[in-house]
C-alpha cells in the first residue's frame, strides 16, 4: 500500500497526503498535516527543515498572564548585589562591620579602641582583674595608707 489517498470532486482527483504506518498491528494511513501560520489571506509555511527565518518558524511565547521571568530575574539579581554590597554583618548606621568574634589564636597587632571588656580571665595565669585591683591597692597605699604613719 502506497502513501496517499486519492479523493475526487467530479472528474478531477488528487491525493490527500498520508503516510502508511502500522499501529496496533493495523496498517493504516496517517494523514500528513502541514502547519502554517498567517493572518487573513496569508500563509507562511513552517515546516521547512533546518533553521529558518522567523516568519518560517514556530513562535514560542509565554501566555499573556504569565509572570515576567525578567522582572524576577532583575529582583533576584538586585538582592544578590545588595547582599554583596551590604551584608547582614554590616551596620549601615555606623558604616562598619558588626560582629561577635572569637580569635581562636594568633596575634592582634593593633587595637585602637576597646569600649568595654566584660571579662578578662587570665593574663599569663594571673587573674585579669588583678590589673585593676592591684592598681587600686597601689593607689590606696600611696594616697591613704601613707597618711597613717
Amino acid at each position, binding site marked *: 500500500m502506497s502513501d496517499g489517498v486519492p479523493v475526487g470532486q467530479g472528474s478531477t482527483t488528487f491525493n490527500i497526503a498520508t503516510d502508511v504506518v502500522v499501529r496496533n498491528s493495523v496498517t493504516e494511513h496517517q494523514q500528513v498535516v502541514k502547519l502554517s501560520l498567517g493572518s487573513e489571506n496569508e500563509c507562511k509555511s513552517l515546516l521547512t527543515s533546518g533553521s529558518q527565518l522567523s516568519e518560517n518558524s514556530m513562535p514560542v511565547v509565554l501566555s499573556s498572564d504569565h509572570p515576567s521571568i525578567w522582572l524576577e530575574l532583575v529582583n533576584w539579581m538586585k538582592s544578590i548585589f545588595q547582599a554583596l554590597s551590604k551584608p547582614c554583618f554590616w551596620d549601615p548606621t555606623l558604616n562598619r562591620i558588626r560582629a561577635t568574634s572569637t580569635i581562636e589564636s594568633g596575634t592582634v597587632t593593633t587595637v585602637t579602641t576597646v569600649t568595654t571588656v566584660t571579662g578578662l580571665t587570665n593574663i599569663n595565669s594571673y587573674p585579669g582583674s588583678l590589673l*585593676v*585591683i592591684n592598681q*587600686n*591597692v597601689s*593607689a*590606696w597605699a600611696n*594616697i*591613704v595608707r601613707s*597618711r*597613717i*604613719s
Partner: protein
Amino acid sequence: MTNNFKKVIDRQMWVHVAPAPNAHAAGISLACDLRKPPYRHPFVFELVSNTVLNRYNIVQKAWNFVVSPALGGTFGAGAGAVYAPSLSLLGAIGAGCSTTTIVTTTALTAVGVNMLANRGGSGEYGFRIRIIGNSAGGSGKIEERWIVANSASTTPAMILDTPLSFTPANGDKYEVLGGRLFMLGAGTLAATSFRAFEVAANSLTSLTTTNLPATIGTDFSAIALDELYVPYDCYPGEGLLPGSLTYNSELRCHGAVTTSTNTLTGSTTGGDLRILANEYRNFQIRIVEDTVNPTAVNQRRIISTHTAGPSPVYTVGTNWSVTPSATAKYVIENPNLILLRSTASTTMHVYNYTDMNIYNGSTTIAFNSWHNTYFGTAPGAMGAGCMQFPSYGIRPDSAKFSRHSYVYNFRGGNSTTLDVLNISGGASGTWDANVVYDGGVTINTGSCGKYAPHDQEGRFGYLNSYVASQVNQIHRFDVQNRVMSPITPTDWIQAGTAAVGDRIATFGAFDGVDYYTVCLLLMHASTIAQELIVLN
C-alpha cells in the same frame, strides 16, 4: 602612729579586698560587732542563705564558710542578721579557782584545747571573760581579763592573762564576752526562722518567733542596743556616762549614795551629774561592784524613771533581788534589746536577749521574747532600703539636743523620710515623725547602712543609697547634728536590678594612738568587696 591626713588636700579611697564567697542577692546581710578594738569580735558575718553563713576576717582580709545556720522559711527579702556581744556564754564558777585559773561547772558545747585563747582574727587575743564575784561570801567585784588558755571540755578551765584582784569563789559567775549573731530568715515563719550563732563555743540555737510577722518580707533593719556598745570616749563595761570611780582597776563607774528596794541614788559628782530627768529611762543600770552586799553585784535592771542630776534617783522597773549597799558602784548602759523593723509595717519589734525578764515599770518582756508595743508604733511603715542608726556612740551636747536615746529610722521605700524614736521619751518611748535634717537622700530598694561608734566622736552612720550605675552612692548621716552628706564613692560602679540586703559593715581599727572607722561594702549584685578607712 599619727593620722597625717590633710583635709581638702588629701583624699580617701575605697580599696579592694578579697571577694566574698557568695555574691549579693536579695536578703544577704552583713553583721558586725560594734565594740571598739581590741574587744570587738574580729569577723564580719555574711548571711547568704538558709544554709550558708560566711565570715570575713577584718585583720587578714579573708573570707571563709562558717556553718549552715539551718534557717527555716524561704530566704530572700526580709532576711538579715545583727550582732550582739553581751550575754552569749554564761556560766557558773566552781571550787578550786586561783586568781588566774577559772574552774567552770556549767556545761557548754565542748571546746577544744586553747580554742578560747584565739578568736581567729590575728591570734593575739583570745576571748574576753568577765568574772563576777557575786556568790554569797564572794568578792562583790566584777573584773575582766583575756583568756590565754583553756582545757578541752564542756566545762573548760580557763587561764587568764593577768591575775584577778580576788580569787573567784564557788558559786561565782562568769560571762565570755564573745557575742552572738542573731539571724532572721524570710518567707513563711517557721520554728527555725530566728536563730543565734554563739561565736566562742560555736553553737546554734533556735529562738522564739512569737510576735514576729507571719510572713517575713520587704526588707530587714535591726540594731542591737547592747550594754557593751558605748560612746566613742568610753570602753566596753563603762556604760554611756563615764563615772568618777573605777572598778576592775580601770573601768569608770558611778558610786551610789543611798538605795532602797527599787531605787538607787547617785552621787553629787561623776558622769551622771548633769543628766536630765528621765534622759536614761528604759536604759539599764548594772551593779558592777558591791563589796558590802556581794550578791547584789551584776544585777541588771531597766530604769523606769529617774530624777535629774546631781544625785539622780534611779527607780528600777523590777525591785532589786538584793538591795545594793550605799557603797555600791554602777553603770548606766544600753538595755540589751534588738530593735527590728520588718515587713512593711509600723511595728517596732523588740527582742529581749538577756537571761532574765525585763520590766520598765509598765511593760514586761520575758527573756527570749519579742514584744511589739514595748516601744510605740512608728509614724510610717518601713519600706525596702530602710535603715536604723542608734546614737549611743556620741557625747550629747550640753543642751541635750542630741541624746543617747535617739534611734534614727530612715523609712526607705524610695523616700527621704526620717523618723526618730526616743526610747526615753516615755514609758514606751516617743516618735518624732518626718524630722527635718540637712541633705536628704532618697532611700531606695537596695540601700543599706550601719552605725559606726568608733571614731569621729561616734557621730556617723554610713550608708549606700543604691541607684543603679550612679557613681555617688555612699553617704554618711551625722546622728549628733542631723546632717546627711556624700562621702568618698567607690571606684567600682554598682549596678543591676535593685535587690535588698544589708551589704555594709563597720568596724574599728586602732593604730596605737587613734581609732578609725573601717567600712566594708559588699557591692550590689556582686562578690566584689571594698573597704574604706575613714580618715576625716
